[in-house]
């Protein structure tokens, strides 16, 4: 790997010389380009391979899977595995496929996203614009808490939920997602609201607007982009969750990820790899769609979630 950098050095320096306006015409097949694009294509192939294998496998019948290799395209395309994965694959107790898990995941994700964003945005707003004594302390605990492994807090939460009478229900899981979404989202909103011009806030104060009026009439409408970023972050995060789904719900409320794992890793019977792969694609579809549709915003989302402080 290091020799790539060495070989690109002489021509590479030329590349940075050219300004943004007019690039120097250089041969498309220069050694530098071959190395850069060659490496990128090889890497891209490696990252795309699993997606390709998933799709190809899910479109084959079982006899073809047993005979051919996993990379060969399907000879006879069949959508049967998809139908089975969706509506009749067995997950331990019942055999109604992933559809149940899909709707559970929807029923978990939608309220969780709304509740967590509502709470976190108001928190971030209070922290940025209405500082009160002790607020920073609580906020610090919250942010440090984001690094604590979930396993440390799981059992106390089980007890709290049980005391509240919502252990094993969707409500309980939604509450848990809202709690664990809070650190990063609050940070996100706090930093965003703090970056808005203070004059806006002051003018609204002079006009007599209070805490909620400023939030609903000025801050929230101005912050659509950050709300979208937070939404992307939460939808993908909550949809992909496995641990909380297993711990805090009963089997009839299992989210899609848990059901998927049960379908694929159940020991009984013949393994139907094509159905498994179709189920895997179905489970990955929602976050993938979010990712492809939102593009740059997704990148912004993870960057905003990643940069602490």
């Amino acid at each position, binding site marked *: 790997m290091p020799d790539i950098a060495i070989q690109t*050095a002489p021509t590479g320096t030329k590349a940075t010389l050219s300004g943004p306006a007019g690039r120097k015409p250089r041969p498309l097949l220069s050694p530098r380009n071959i190395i850069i694009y060659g490496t990128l294509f090889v890497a891209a192939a490696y990252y795309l391979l699993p997606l390709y294998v998933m799709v190809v496998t899910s479109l084959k019948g079982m006899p073809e899977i047993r005979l051919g290799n996993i990379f060969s395209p399907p000879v006879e395309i069949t959508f049967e595995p998809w139908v089975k994965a969706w509506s009749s694959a067995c997950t331990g107790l019942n055999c109604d496929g992933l559809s149940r898990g899909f709707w559970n995941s929807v029923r978990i994700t939608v309220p969780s996203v709304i509740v967590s964003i509502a709470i976190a945005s108001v928190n971030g707003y209070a922290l940025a614009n209405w500082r009160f004594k002790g607020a920073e302390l609580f906020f610090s605990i919250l942010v440090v808490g984001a*690094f604590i492994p979930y396993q440390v807090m799981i059992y106390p939460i089980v007890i709290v939920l049980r005391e509240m009478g919502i252990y094993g229900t969707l409500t309980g899981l939604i509450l848990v997602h809202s709690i664990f979404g809070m650190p990063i989202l609050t940070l996100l909103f706090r930093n965003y609201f703090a970056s808005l011009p203070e004059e806006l806030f002051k003018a609204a104060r002079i006009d007599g607007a209070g805490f909620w009026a400023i939030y609903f009439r000025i801050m929230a409408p101005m912050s659509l982009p950050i709300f979208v970023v937070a939404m992307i972050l939460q939808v993908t995060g909550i949809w992909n969750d496995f641990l909380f789904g297993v711990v805090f719900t009963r089997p009839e409320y299992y989210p899609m*990820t848990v059901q998927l794992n049960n379908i694929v890793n159940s020991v009984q019977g013949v393994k139907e790899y094509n159905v498994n792969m179709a189920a895997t694609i179905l489970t990955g579809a929602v976050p993938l769609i979010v990712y492809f549709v939102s593009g740059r915003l997704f990148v912004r989302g993870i960057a905003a979630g990643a940069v602490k402080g």
Partner: protein
Amino acid sequence: MAGHAKTGRPNQLFRNLNAKIASIPMILTAVVIFLGGTLWTVLYSFTNSKLLPRLKFVGLDQYERLWAAPRWVVSIENLAIYGFFSLIFSLVIGFLLAALMDQKIRFENTFRTIFLYPFALSFIVTGLVWQWILNPEFGVQSVVRSLGWTTFVFDPLYTPSIVIYGILIAALWQGTGLVMCLMLAGLRGIDEDIWKASRVDGIPMWKTYLLIIIPMMRPVFITTLVIIASGIVKVYDLVVAQTSGGPGIASEVPAKYVYDYMFQAQNLGQGFAASTMMLITVAIIIVPWAYLEFGGGRKRA
């Protein structure tokens, strides 16, 4: 904006009251769940809780039993191997990809999309896909054998001594895109004049990267390091999906140990002790970082 509360506007008490009411969820979460929950778990790790938590203190008993358990020792070894290699490889691969992407290439967006999409997927999905690709009967091994090399052996998920590397392959596939993205943002943040200056001085590109750019990207590296490291300690879903801890106990990890003892073996004390050890591991990573970032960092600035 720090001075709002101190400027002494009228009805300050009422105004703060509103903010306080709005912050109740945050305060409750911070105090009850994050602080309270953590202290509760640490406290009960010194008890002999079995099926239900109870306050009968037994000192360091649970910890002695924990470290005497072969499964826990294997978990820790796995975490160490997995952690070491995933840190090194994701930083190196992530940086190399970012450096290549920074060469004013065409189709940058397409490449970025390809490298990052695995990150959008759940660990369960990632684990299952790689379980399938690494399946010796159908996957890479059988494909290479069918090409003529009939003695070719590549079945990491079925060989206890290397199973953790099989998990590592999937983890790197999932996570390097994020590292690439963070590194690329770091590279874009570096002043173009640095490159011009190094070119004027005739310093080769690789040397500029190694001696100037990478040291300048220190904050990005540290942030990335902390993100990867705290993710490593939590690794759970991937192992469950890919190997369920097998073959035998060869791919067990601490997070799985905690879950199994808390919710399946009904030995809460062991679960609490194990999760407290995880907490300590994370503290070892976070405390120096927090110190650098917020405490000792000031004199550098």
